[in-house]
């Protein structure tokens, strides 16, 4: 029964991706898409999903959409502008180093969201994760502070806030 819930959740995502990738929504695409999504969802249910009930909590989806817009139009733009400024600046003001960034989220997908959000913004790259110590190690183009809690304030606070609401 639980597997069915997981399979339905994964299947829905696969179905949407299948139809978008096929580039058409004719009866042929919808029928084959549903069959493929059902089979794929059933096969990968236990690999991909832990708590299928989260698929039904639509506020998570709302937070996801909000975050997608915010991330691509605010956080990404800010980081790009900052790194561009450093590259074009005659004195190239960089102060690179690796810092420890603690996190408090629980689920793997929330950790992944934070890590990928950090890596995809220019200037910061996650180089390692320590699940027991609940911390990411991040290469930062301009190390302003080294104290872990202050680094978190600078680097990942927003990402973590959204990651918790979407996945935890």
């Amino acid at each position, binding site marked *: 029964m639980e597997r069915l819930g997981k399979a339905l959740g994964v299947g829905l995502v696969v179905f949407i991706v299948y139809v978008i990738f*096929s580039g058409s929504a004719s009866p042929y695409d919808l029928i084959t898409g549903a069959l493929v999504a059902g089979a794929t969802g059933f096969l990968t249910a236990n690999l991909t999903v832990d708590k299928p009930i989260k698929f039904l909590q639509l506020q998570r989806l709302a937070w996801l959409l909000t975050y997608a817009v915010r991330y691509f139009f605010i956080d990404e733009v800010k980081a790009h502008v900052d790194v561009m400024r450093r590259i074009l600046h005659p004195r190239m003001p960089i102060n690179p180093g690796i810092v420890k960034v603690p996190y408090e989220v629980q689920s793997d997908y929330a*950790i992944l969201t934070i890590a990928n959000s950090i890596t995809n913004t220019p200037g910061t790259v996650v180089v390692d994760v320590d699940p027991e110590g609940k911390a990411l190690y991040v290469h930062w183009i301009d190390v302003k502070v080294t104290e872990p809690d202050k680094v978190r304030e600078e680097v990942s606070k927003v990402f973590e806030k959204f990651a918790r609401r979407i996945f935890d």
Partner: protein
Amino acid sequence: MRLGRYLQAFSLVALAVLLAVALTYKGLGDLPNPAVRDLALWYLYTTLNPEVPNMTVMSPEAVTAIVWDYRGLDTLFETMVFFLAIVGALAIMRGITLNEGGEGLHIERYGLSLITKTATKLLVPLIIGVSASIALHGHLTPGGGFQGGSAAAVAPLLVLVIFSTYYVVFKLRLSELSMISLRTLGLMGIYMTSFATLILGLVIGVNAYIFQNMPKANAFIGLPPALGGSLISGTLFFFNLFEFFAVAAGFTLVFILLSIPEVKAREVLKGEEHGH
């Protein structure tokens, strides 16, 4: 050092210029005779054309029509060559398996970081969905069973590398045997499809051919070009579908075999040398 870089750049430019000169003056041999272009025109004219009922394949994707219909027999034997290669790999690796010895292993400690693993968990179903789309639209858009099957095999390959072989065999239970079975089912499907019209003809009692798809002048039966208004192009849909399973399972099988640790393989081979 700097001179070397200039020489590299110069030699690349020189190569491009000389190739262009050679092509212009037919230095690489004569260009293909324009007469053979009629063949291409004929394929494009007939591939989806109900007005030439004995010639058409009823598929807008001329490449798949050529691969699985106009020269379908050729593709069948190509498929056999690929599967003979897998049979060869199986013969060399016979007896080498991970099917036991999984107890006491801390499987979760193997593999890459939590981030990579979590991203892979999310990617695996999407890879399978997209590759199935490549295969099932093979008669409509570029792609097909082989392309889709190869793309699908990326999913188990990712898990093998990122989670470890032990995870694939003991947690996901993708055993070599299940992959061989799936591959055999796919091959059976391909063979059944190539006989489908012939069997239909024998049952009805009319003339039909092996590997026949659409009706021909002296064999007027064939597989349906469309189902419920959606094109399936007769045999093309079924060939792509079964090839998808056969190729995905075949590649996965080889990936599993290749990722078995050498220590395990040596145990089996040594045992054989001592005659156990």
